[in-house]
């Protein structure tokens, strides 16, 4: 049990896929303009990483080593298309809002990275936990970045006027992708000054 707990907590704090492993940066720049999109994206990634890791782990002893990347890709692509299809059928409005980024989860390094690094060498339950936790670690950073970008870029939170109601003038730079990198950098800085063991010598 203690080990499962660590598997779950590690990707969220010490081994966070975005701030420590620096994976999945591209989508973190793209979908963090608004909080709502970031939340649905986070949920979708959690589902995809969790279930793909589970499937890959179940198949781990049968996958031929030489084509394992291709098999992983097939599993991840299947999961992403399934998520997209279900969103289109049951949550059409949200799918429209996220548009192309759902499909781009396939290219998110975190998903394949966790299958390759963890699921192929571990039992299904820890793999599922690892996948879910990595998705969660990714999602939390996404939501944190989106919070600042929507607040200072559009003056709103979840579309509800907050700063703009106080007469704040929107900062156009915050909406542009470079600002996501800067905010991400600040978050990494903050995390490393608290968790000193993450600093390189």
């Amino acid at each position: 049990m203690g080990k499962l707990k660590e598997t779950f907590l590690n990707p969220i704090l010490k081994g966070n896929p975005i701030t420590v492993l620096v994976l999945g940066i591209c989508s973190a720049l793209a979908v963090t303009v608004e909080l709502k999109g970031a939340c649905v994206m986070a949920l979708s990634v959690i589902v995809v990483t969790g279930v793909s890791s589970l499937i890959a782990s179940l198949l781990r002893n049968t996958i031929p080593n030489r084509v394992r990347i291709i098999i992983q890709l097939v599993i991840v692509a299947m999961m992403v298309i399934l998520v997209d299809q279900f969103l289109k059928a049951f949550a059409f409005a949200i799918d429209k809002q996220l548009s192309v980024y759902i499909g781009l989860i396939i290219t998110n390094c975190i998903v394949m990275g966790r299958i390759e690094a963890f699921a192929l060498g571990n039992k299904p339950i820890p793999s599922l936990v690892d996948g879910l936790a990595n998705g969660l670690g990714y999602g939390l950073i996404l939501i944190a970045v989106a919070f600042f970008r929507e607040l200072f870029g559009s003056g709103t939170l979840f579309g509800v006027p907050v700063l703009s109601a106080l007469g704040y003038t929107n900062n156009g730079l915050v909406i542009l992708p470079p600002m996501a990198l800067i905010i991400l950098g600040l978050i990494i800085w903050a995390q490393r000054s608290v968790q000193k063991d993450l600093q390189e010598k």
Partner: protein
Amino acid sequence: MNTNNNTYTVIYTTVICVLVAAILAFVSQTLKPRQEANEKAETISQILTAAQFADKAELQKMGNAAIIQLFNDNIDGKAEVVSVSELKALNYKLKAGENVPVPTYRFKNGVKVIPIYGAGLWGPVWGYIAVDDADGVRIVGAYFDHESETPGLGGKIKDDPAFRAQFKGEVIDAGNPAKPFDIVKGGSPAGNTEDSKVDAITGATMTSKGLDAAMDVWLGAYVKSLNHGGTK
């Protein structure tokens, strides 16, 4: 078991691929009617929003059946709903200068809705312009949508109600089919509805230009058909 020999590898890969393809095909077939119904209701709700029968957010809460009911109650005669992919095909013909009729939804209250379609920055942009021909060609309302414009920038053509609201009451320059309407930087002084101009979106130049070009092609074809008809 030796999982590294060639025969095993080929058979394994084939089985996985066929299995995954079968799962995806099955799910796609099962969900297709729902997805198509959603898409049709989405198109209709955009048309209704443009024609000011209801607001998009309200329509979304009403559900598909109620949306189609509202459309059928108000449409004049019978209208086939033209899907976005059909608009794409029509757009090629219009841009090539072919003389094809622009699909027009006529409502009982005299409002006509004309679709527009064009290229934004990352993908297609489209929309619906509701007009009234009683006193010149005047815009009653507009609604825009896009496939993959940047949220918060180009995505504002859909998400920003203030952008849409600018179009209300603007006159379309029916005498100039090449440039019947302008989406430009600076737009027009507030309240000036006679200059056929609205303000473009800051930071979304390419999306604004794409929308501007789409308006020219489709509204141009529409006013041309009016002029040829000689009724107005």
